C-alpha cells in the first residue's frame, strides 16, 4: 500500500483556505478515501445520525506526481483527525512562504508512512507532510487510523454510491449567507427546523414551538429537476398557506431537521461555493444540499470539485 504525491499550489489553497476550514467545523474525524482518480473527504458516512458531508476532488486539482498503489484496486481509505490535518497543512504553508520568499517552486510532499513512534512497540501509520525550506526540511506526521480493510473499503464505496442519489427537485440559493444569518439567529427561538421545498421554486424554513412560529420564505428560486408553475390564485396567500397548499397538491415536500445540523451544513460556505442547491430526497429520506463551484472567471460548473451534505430527517413528532 503506497501513496505519495505533491500538493499543487492550487491544491494547497483549496485545502488550507477553504475546504479544511469548513471540514474542521463539520466534525472531529473524517475518512480520507483515495482512488486512482479522486480524493474524497467523507464525514459521518458510515456511522449515521449526524450530517453527512461528501467532498470529491479530481486528483489533478490537488496533486501532481500522484502515485497510489494498493492490492485493493489502488484504493486506500483511513480516518484522521481533521483539525490535525488542518494544522499540518497550515504550518506547511507558512513554512513554504517564509522560506521560499514567495516563490511557488517550493513543493509540499504528502505521503503515507509507517513509523515507530517513541515509547511505542508497534509501528503506526501516519500521513506525512514534507516541506523543503531554503536550508532545511520540515516533516510533520499526522497520525491516521489503520487503513481500512478490503471489506471496509467496499462498505465505504457502497455508502458513497448510495449517497449520490439526487433529489427530484432542487432549488438554487444564490446568496447562502442570507440563509446562514437567518438560521443562525433563529437558533435562539427553536431547535427543530421545518424545511419545505416546492416545484415552483420556493424554499421555506420555519421553526415553531408552543409560543412562537418563525419562518422565512425564499420565492422564485431557479429549479432543477421536477418543476411546475405556481397556481395564480396562490399568489396572494401567506407563505404558510401557500406551502400547505403546495404540499397538499403534491407540488412540495417538507421535512424536519435539527437546527444544529442545518447550521453545521451551512459551515460548508467556508469552502466559498458559488451557490447551493437544496432538495429533499425521495420519501423524505434526507435533506440534501449540493454546493456548486464555478471555474474561476466563468459561469461554468467546475466538475473537478464536488461537495454535498445530507441532513438526517427527524421523525415528525419526536423532538
Amino acid at each position, binding site marked *: 500500500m503506497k501513496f505519495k504525491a505533491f500538493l499543487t499550489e492550487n491544491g494547497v489553497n483549496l485545502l488550507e483556505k477553504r475546504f479544511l476550514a469548513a471540514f474542521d467545523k463539520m466534525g472531529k474525524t473524517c475518512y480520507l478515501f483515495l482512488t486512482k482518480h479522486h480524493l474524497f473527504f467523507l464525514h459521518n458516512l458510515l456511522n449515521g445520525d449526524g450530517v453527512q458531508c461528501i467532498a470529491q476532488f479530481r486528483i489533478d486539482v490537488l496533486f501532481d506526481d500522484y502515485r497510489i498503489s494498493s492490492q485493493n484496486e489502488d484504493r486506500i481509505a483511513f480516518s484522521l483527525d481533521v483539525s490535525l490535518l488542518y494544522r499540518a497543512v497550515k504550518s506547511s504553508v507558512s513554512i513554504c512562504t517564509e522560506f521560499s520568499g514567495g516563490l511557488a517552486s517550493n513543493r509540499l510532499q504528502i505521503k503515507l508512512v509507517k513509523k515507530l513512534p517513541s515509547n511505542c512497540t508497534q509501528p503506526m501509520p501516519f500521513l506525512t507532510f514534507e516541506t523543503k525550506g531554503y536550508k532545511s526540511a520540515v516533516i510533520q506526521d499526522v497520525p491516521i487510523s489503520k487503513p481500512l480493510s478490503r471489506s471496509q473499503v467496499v462498505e465505504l464505496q457502497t455508502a458513497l454510491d448510495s449517497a449520490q442519489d439526487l433529489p427530484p427537485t432542487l432549488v438554487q440559493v444564490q*446568496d447562502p*449567507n*442570507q440563509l446562514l*444569518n*437567518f438560521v*443562525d*439567529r*433563529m437558533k*435562539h*427561538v427553536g431547535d427543530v427546523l421545518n424545511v419545505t421545498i416546492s416545484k415552483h421554486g420556493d424554499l421555506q424554513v420555519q421553526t415553531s414551538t*408552543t*409560543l*412562537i*412560529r*418563525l*419562518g*422565512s*420564505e*425564499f*420565492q*422564485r*428560486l431557479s429549479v432543477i429537476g421536477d418543476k411546475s408553475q405556481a397556481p395564480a390564485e396562490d*399568489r*396572494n396567500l*401567506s*407563505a*404558510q398557506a401557500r406551502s400547505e397548499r403546495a404540499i397538499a397538491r403534491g407540488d412540495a415536500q417538507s421535512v424536519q431537521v435539527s437546527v444544529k445540523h442545518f447550521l453545521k451544513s451551512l459551515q460548508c460556505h467556508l469552502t466559498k461555493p458559488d451557490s447551493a442547491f437544496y432538495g429533499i430526497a425521495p420519501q423524505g429520506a434526507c435533506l440534501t444540499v449540493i454546493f456548486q463551484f464555478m471555474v474561476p472567471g466563468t459561469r461554468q460548473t467546475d466538475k473537478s470539485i464536488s461537495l454535498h451534505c445530507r441532513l438526517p430527517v427527524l421523525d415528525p413528532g419526536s423532538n
Partner: protein
Amino acid sequence: MNSSPAIESDAPDLVCQLDNVQGMVDALTCVRWKRHQDALVELSEHGIVLIVEESGCLQAKVYLQREVWISPKPSNSIHQTVESVMLYVCEKLFTKYEYGAEGRPRFGISLGLLVDCLNTFSSPGHSNTIEIKYPGPDMELLLKSVDTLNSCIYSEIRTRIPETSEWDYNFEQAGTAPLTFTVKSAALKEAIDDLEWPGSSVQISLQKSPPCVTLRGEGHGDLQIDFMYYANTDLLLAFHCDTEVSYGYKYKFLKATTANIPGNVARENRGSKLTIGRGGMLKVQHLVSVAKALAPQVESAGYQPPSRIAYIEFFVKPEETA
C-alpha cells in the same frame, strides 16, 4: 401590497411599520436583564409601551412613541450650550401607524422571545422594514418583513392575558425642584460595572456644593466613585440639586439599568438622566436611536444630530432603611 381592504369590524387594533428593526432590538435589549422575562405591552394611539418588572423593586419601560419631539438640548443644563438654541424637531418613529382599537389594548408576551425573534428580522441581507400587527386570529402578535423581493420573514408570537395586578411605581418629584443629573451613558455603565465587587448595595448621593454625584458601594470592601460637576463637565452633562440626598439601592437592580445596553448604543454615548423622586425612587432614562442606519454622521465634537429615538425608563425602589 397584497392585503385585502380591512373590513371595519375586523380591523386589527394596530398595524404599524418600522424601518429599523435593529433599533427596536437595541431598545428592547436594554431592559432584558434575564433570559426568561414576562413583559406587558400596551398599545395606544400614541405608540407602543413595553413594561417589565422584577420583585416589586425594579420596573423598566420602553416607549416607542409614534411621534417624538426632540430637543437637542440636554435638559436641566446649568450652562447654555450651542445646541440649546436649536428648535424642537418632530420625528415619526413608525413609517406607518394605523391604530384601530378603542381604549388601550394590553397583552403579555415573553420579552426574550420577542427580542430573539425581532433579531432574526434584522439579519443582514433582508430588508430592515418590519410590519407589526395585533391581534392575529388567535390573539397573536404578528410580525413580517416587508419590501424584500422574493423573500420574506414572518412570525407569530403567542400572547397572554396580562396580569391584572398593577405595578405601582408612582414617581413623584421629591421637592419643589427635581433632583437630577445627566451623565454620559458609557460612563454611567462603567461606574456601575466597577461597583460590582464591593457587592450588594450602592449608595447614590447628590451634594449641592460643590455639585457632585457620589456612587458608593459597600460590602466586601468599599468603592466610591465621584462625578464632580465642575471637574467632569464632559461626563456629567447636567446637574440639578437644591438639597442633599442619599439613598441606597440593591446592586443587582442598579446594574439592570445599564448592564444590557448594547455596545453600539453605549458607543453613541448619549446622556442618561437619573432623577431621585419622593421616597428615594430612582428614575434612570436612556435614549436609543431607532433611526434608519445611515453612514455615521458624527460631527467633530461628537455631537449627533437628533433622530428618531426610543425612550427607556427604569424605576428602582430604594432599599428599606433599617
